[in-house]
């Protein structure tokens, strides 16, 4: 096969190296990211599912209907039950209000329940994954219950009327985090012992959870059939609703990875287009020769088509292999800290890489080569003959179309695609205009400056068209790289800000006014730093503007169906922001108490400024007027309230207090000390959930760092391709100048100036583009606060100057160090 032989010879001659490398890089970047994100997503979904202990949970205040269980069986859905309630548990001498959980065999469906025979065990050797739930007659409990009740393993513990034997301590349970009402220490028992405790009575506050796991499509069908049967008592809990903060973090991470893939592909696409253009230019003579030797247009087309297809296939295979290897590298780096094993990638995750290869080949490589077969054979004798190709605007349109297709494949997000593509277009047009103006200015200045500068400016002007194109390409590559780098920094900082190292991880509730000072004192004694103690009164919203809410509103607003916590505050918390109305210091309405409502709650309730809300507090009525609407950050882990009253409003309703504290693992026994002195205080432990989120954030950040390096490689490739594209002319010019007696240093200086100027100007444009792009991505895509990147302006421009300057000089180094005669002979 002549075509393949020619391809091999072209490869050896270095003619296709940039083209092939760019193609390989495109396929590798996309494959790596699509395979890795697929695995990551699968792992994170299953990881997130372990927060639920299942794929879905039906939560209800009533026992689950028996017919539903049959339906689940029909759909081959795995199920398990948990029944949770707060109840006193007794040892021989002491008692504790524990969070009781009765579980059925099979619990948890996903994730691991870890237990030990040693209280407070941290040594992995003594921590085991529970293979079954507690047997009938047995009970497992949190370590801290043992000193609290003064019992050991093997001792007896009573729940209601049932006496059970304590056989294990619970180290961790997967769905602990999803249950914010887990007051008190956890005890876990077998579901079959539940009836004999006689704790569950009509009117008891019980949370029934029906855990479901199975194939996603079967689950969807099953849930679709189940939904019409559900009453307002039942709700479906999925990963997102269970872990909103985490889901948002992961979604942002996924978007970032896809964005990196997209930017990687765009960069590789540009590199491919430039390399293909150069390949075509260098092959004009080869085609003319082939035609003079009798090759027909059809034959030439065939030869190049086979070369392209072979090149594409080889690049796709190598790209896929590199992509696979890279993602394995990333996965193994991440695996050491990842809580669950990454699963094998699905076959579909290999497709984007292959599609990318094909799209790049068809849209970026084929157009510049399209005219090769119709080059007239007389070109071999008349080298000055102009060879027309596919019109530039067609090539550009096709390239643009390819970019849109690729961006659409990766982002699935109209705003993201639109903002990236339009930023690219605007940048390219502006750069072109800017570059032309500057080159004109440069040619005037060039006449008045020193010879090295004159040489550099003359070179830029002589190849004005090339210089403008290079500036556009450099600008584009730098813009994309700057965007990605800054976005990564912002993103990781934003996550770390969300959950800083000492985020409060325990909530203390139900502190009575009499206990308030003593609790604070105890905290001080034990070195536990407390946030503010917030007063809290449980109340039910009964009327809005004197009218009882309709069923429709009740259905929409959960807080009308349950008691809400009212609080008051003199000053507004750091993580609260008034978006409408005024805070107390500016709000004056004599004779009426004011209330500040959280924005989302206000929307659900349909209330706005000036509306009157009536609450029932233990049967006593309390009226308040909406004075402001607030947004707040729930993920700050500080106590926050939907309703904040003006000071004094709750004075007559004996409040309890609430606070959040950070306890490190060594200090955990403080809870026991606290509960021993104040047994009625309720403790919510969030430490494991927060630790888990922090660890996932740090792993995903590590993954993002690695991805960034890959994309940077793409950026360098574009610049390399762009510099190499003009190398033939440059070689000839430089060799000629050397032959005419220019010193090496002078040429080197001129090259530095020329490329640094190109880089600096491209850098300025890139920084402008990157800033606009970053702001629009922050605003529309990532839903983050807008932030101007001042550092970018300085190091973006300087970095571009140094980088392009360096790249240019390195690429041309050979021309300067080799004898001019040899170079002139090479370029003919």
């Amino acid at each position, binding site marked *: 096969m*002549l075509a393949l*032989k020619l391809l091999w*010879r*072209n490869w*050896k*001659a*270095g*003619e296709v190296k940039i083209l092939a490398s760019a193609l390989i890089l495109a396929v590798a970047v996309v494959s790596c990211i699509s395979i890795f994100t697929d695995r990551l997503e699968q792992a994170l979904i299953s990881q997130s599912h372990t927060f639920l202990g299942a794929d879905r949970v039906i939560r209800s205040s009533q026992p689950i209907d028996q017919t539903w269980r049959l339906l689940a069986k029909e759909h081959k859905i795995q199920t398990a039950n948990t029944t949770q309630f707060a109840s006193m548990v007794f040892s021989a001498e002491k008692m504790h209000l524990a969070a009781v959980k009765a579980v059925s065999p099979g619990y948890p469906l996903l994730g691991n329940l870890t237990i030990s025979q040693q209280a407070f065990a941290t040594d992995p050797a003594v921590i085991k994954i529970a293979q079954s739930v507690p047997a009938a007659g047995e009970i497992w409990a949190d370590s801290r219950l043992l000193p609290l009740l003064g019992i050991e393993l093997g001792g007896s513990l009573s729940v209601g009327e049932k006496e059970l034997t304590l056989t294990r301590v619970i180290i961790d349970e997967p769905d602990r985090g999803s249950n914010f009402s887990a007051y008190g220490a956890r005890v876990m028992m077998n579901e079959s012992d539940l009836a004999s405790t006689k704790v569950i009575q009509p009117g008891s506050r019980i949370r029934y959870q029906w855990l479901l796991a199975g194939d996603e499509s079967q689950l969807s069908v099953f849930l679709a059939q189940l939904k019409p049967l559900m009453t307002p008592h039942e709700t479906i809990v999925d990963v997102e609703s269970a872990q909103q903060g985490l889901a948002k973090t992961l979604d942002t991470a996924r978007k970032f990875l896809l964005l990196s893939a997209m930017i990687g592909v765009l960069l590789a696409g540009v590199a491919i287009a430039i390399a293909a253009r150069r390949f075509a230019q260098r092959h004009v*003579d*080869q085609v003319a*020769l*082939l*035609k*003079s*030797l*009798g*090759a*027909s*247009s*059809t*034959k030439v087309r065939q030869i190049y088509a086979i070369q392209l297809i072979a090149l594409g296939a080889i690049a796709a295979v190598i790209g896929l292999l590199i992509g696979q290897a890279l993602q394995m590298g990333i996965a193994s780096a991440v695996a050491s800290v990842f809580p669950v094993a990454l699963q094998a990638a699905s076959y579909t995750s290999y497709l984007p890489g292959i599609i990318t290869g094909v799209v790049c080949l068809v849209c970026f490589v084929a157009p510049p080569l399209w005219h090769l077969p119709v080059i*007239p*054979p*007389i070109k*071999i*004798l*008349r*080298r000055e003959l102009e060879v027309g190709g596919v019109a530039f605007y067609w090539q550009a349109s096709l390239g643009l179309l390819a970019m849109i297709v690729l961006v659409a494949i990766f982002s699935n997000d109209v705003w993201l695609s639109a903002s990236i593509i339009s930023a690219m277009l605007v940048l390219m047009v502006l750069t072109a205009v800017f570059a032309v103006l500057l080159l004109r200015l440069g040619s005037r200045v060039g006449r008045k400056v020193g010879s090295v500068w004159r040489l550099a400016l003359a070179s830029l002007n002589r190849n004005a068209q090339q210089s403008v194109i290079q500036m556009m390409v450099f600008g584009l590559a730098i813009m994309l790289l700057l965007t990605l780098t800054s976005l990564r920094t912002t993103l990781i900082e934003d996550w770390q800000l969300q959950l800083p190292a000492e985020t409060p991880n325990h909530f203390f509730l139900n502190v009575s006014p009499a206990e308030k000072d003593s609790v604070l004192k105890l905290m001080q004694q034990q070195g536990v730093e407390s946030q503010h103690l917030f007063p809290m009164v449980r109340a039910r919203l009964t009327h809005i503007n004197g009218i009882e809410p309709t069923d429709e509103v009740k259905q929409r607003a959960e807080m009308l169906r349950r008691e809400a916590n009212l609080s008051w505050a003199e000053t507004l918390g750091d993580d609260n922001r008034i978006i409408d109305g005024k805070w107390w210091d500016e709000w004056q309405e004599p004779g009426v108490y004011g209330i500040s409502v959280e924005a989302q709650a206000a929307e659900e309730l349909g209330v706005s400024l000036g509306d009157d809300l009536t609450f029932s507090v233990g049967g006593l009525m309390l009226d308040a007027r909406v004075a402001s609407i607030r947004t707040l950050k729930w993920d700050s882990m500080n106590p926050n309230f939907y309703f904040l009253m003006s000071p004094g409003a709750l004075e007559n309703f004996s409040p309890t207090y609430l606070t959040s504290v950070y306890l490190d693992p060594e200090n955990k026994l403080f809870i026991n000390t606290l509960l021993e002195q104040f047994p009625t205080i309720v403790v919510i432990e969030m430490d494991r959930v927060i630790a888990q989120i922090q660890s996932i954030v740090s792993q995903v950040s590590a993954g993002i760092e690695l991805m960034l390096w890959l994309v940077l490689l793409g950026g360098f490739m574009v610049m390399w391709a762009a510099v190499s594209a003009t190398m033939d002319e440059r070689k000839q010019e430089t060799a000629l100048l050397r032959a005419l007696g220019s010193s090496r240093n002078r040429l080197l200086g001129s090259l530095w100036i020329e490329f640094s100027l190109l880089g600096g100007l491209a850098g300025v444009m890139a920084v402008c583009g990157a800033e606009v792009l970053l702001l629009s991505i922050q605003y529309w895509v990532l839903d983050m606060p807008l932030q101007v990147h001042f550092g970018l302006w300085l190091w973006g421009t300087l970095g571009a100057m140094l980088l392009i300057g360096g790249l240019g000089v390195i690429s041309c180094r050979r021309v300067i160090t080799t004898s001019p005669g*040899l170079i002139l*002979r*090479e370029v*003919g």
Partner: protein
Amino acid sequence: MLNAQSLTKKVTTAAGELVILDEVSLQLEAGDSLAITGASGSGKSTLLGILAGLDEPSSGRISLNQHELTELGEEGRAKVRANHVGFVFQSFQLLPGLTALENVMMPLELHGIDNAKGKAEFFLTRVGLNERLNHYPQQLSGGEQQRVAIARAFASEPDILFADEPTGNLDSATGAHVIELLFELNREQGTTLILVTHEQRLAEHCQKRINLEGGKVVERHCKSSTTACEAI
């Protein structure tokens, strides 16, 4: 072998119509050698391109080895070039990425000729480059590069060989050596040879010669007799 009648080539430029060739006619028998001479811009290379089927005349007829070139399309002319024509160019036109051997093999492979490698090695040895088979063009001197080009031209055993200023890029000693080789092979293979040159020395090697001026044949010259010259 070659019969060209009233070849005219006109091109339209911004300044108006430009006549590059004006009613040029010539005839050659198999094994003949013809030198086309003339000053720069006299239309030599244009005539060579048209005679070889690389370009089309604006009017006139050419028959090459029984093929009416002027009646064929580009695909048909490509076939004729493939089967009957060889070229040697002033700037050698070797592909820089290919070794000497690969350059010579290329036309053979293009036409699917068996044992391309053996044949290429034979011709490279014949032009005295058996030690340089795996050298790249930039590693060869100008004379050596032109010898590779000659080996490439003769390797496909053409009936007619067109040479465009074959010694134009060479010094006189190297040029003389290349001329010698070209005519030696021409004789051995019985190839018809048409070359464009402005070098008197080279033109004198040919049996026939025409001189162009402003696209017109202003002089015809033959080594053997004047009567035969009328038939050029």
